[in-house]
């Protein structure tokens, strides 16, 4: 928490046009394997940290009446999957946060987007490798391209607040 306070103090000195929050922890565990620390850590990275970091960034965006906020959700933002109850909770929470944030700041010209992909072909998805074709997972380059488009090619009259990305193939 002290690290985040120090970090937030530093970033509050700057005006950012965009915040892109990408980190996440994904672990497969039944609820009876969870403990205080694993629950706390996963919620901290996936939900609390993006909320904490948003505060100083958006304060300055509101002063300028302009800003773009992009967060990464998951298919678990919209559904519950067994053995990932903490992860699903954190991603559902992030969806709620983004929806409320968008509603609160939309008219101040702050644009909020939650991108919710299925499994992406990165190290984070390695717990899913058993029984799945890793090659069919979403290409991280394509997600990067999408984020780039959201930042650099913005429409004047509309904004996409929630984007759900599905794999094109599961085989």
């Amino acid at each position, binding site marked *: 928490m002290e690290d985040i306070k120090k970090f937030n103090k530093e970033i509050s000195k700057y005006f950012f*046009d965009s915040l892109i929050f990408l*980190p996440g922890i994904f672990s497969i565990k039944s609820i009876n394997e969870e403990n205080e620390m694993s629950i706390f850590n996963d919620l901290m990275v996936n939900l609390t940290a993006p909320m904490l970091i948003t505060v100083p960034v958006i304060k300055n965006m509101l002063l300028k009446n302009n800003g773009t906020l992009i967060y990464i959700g998951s298919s678990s933002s919209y559904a519950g999957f067994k053995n990932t109850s903490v992860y699903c909770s954190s991603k559902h929470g992030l969806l709620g946060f983004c929806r409320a944030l968008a509603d609160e700041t939309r008219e101040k010209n702050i644009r909020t987007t939650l991108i919710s992909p299925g499994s992406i072909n990165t190290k984070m998805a390695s717990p899913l490798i058993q029984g799945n074709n890793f090659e069919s997972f979403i290409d991280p380059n394509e997600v*990067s391209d999408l*984020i780039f488009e959201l930042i650099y090619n913005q429409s004047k009259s509309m904004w996409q607040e929630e984007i759900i990305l599905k794999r094109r193939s599961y085989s």
Partner: protein
Amino acid sequence: MKKNILLIGSDSGIAKNLIEILLIMETIYSQLQEGISANLNHSNIFR
């Protein structure tokens, strides 16, 4: 247009790719600012 972006992420996956794209954009922007032809087309920006 040059943007001031706060990117929070690790050095892998989406973040790594995005940093590469943004750095290329920054380079192109700087070169254009200096009046030097970047000689890059749209597809170069994305890979």
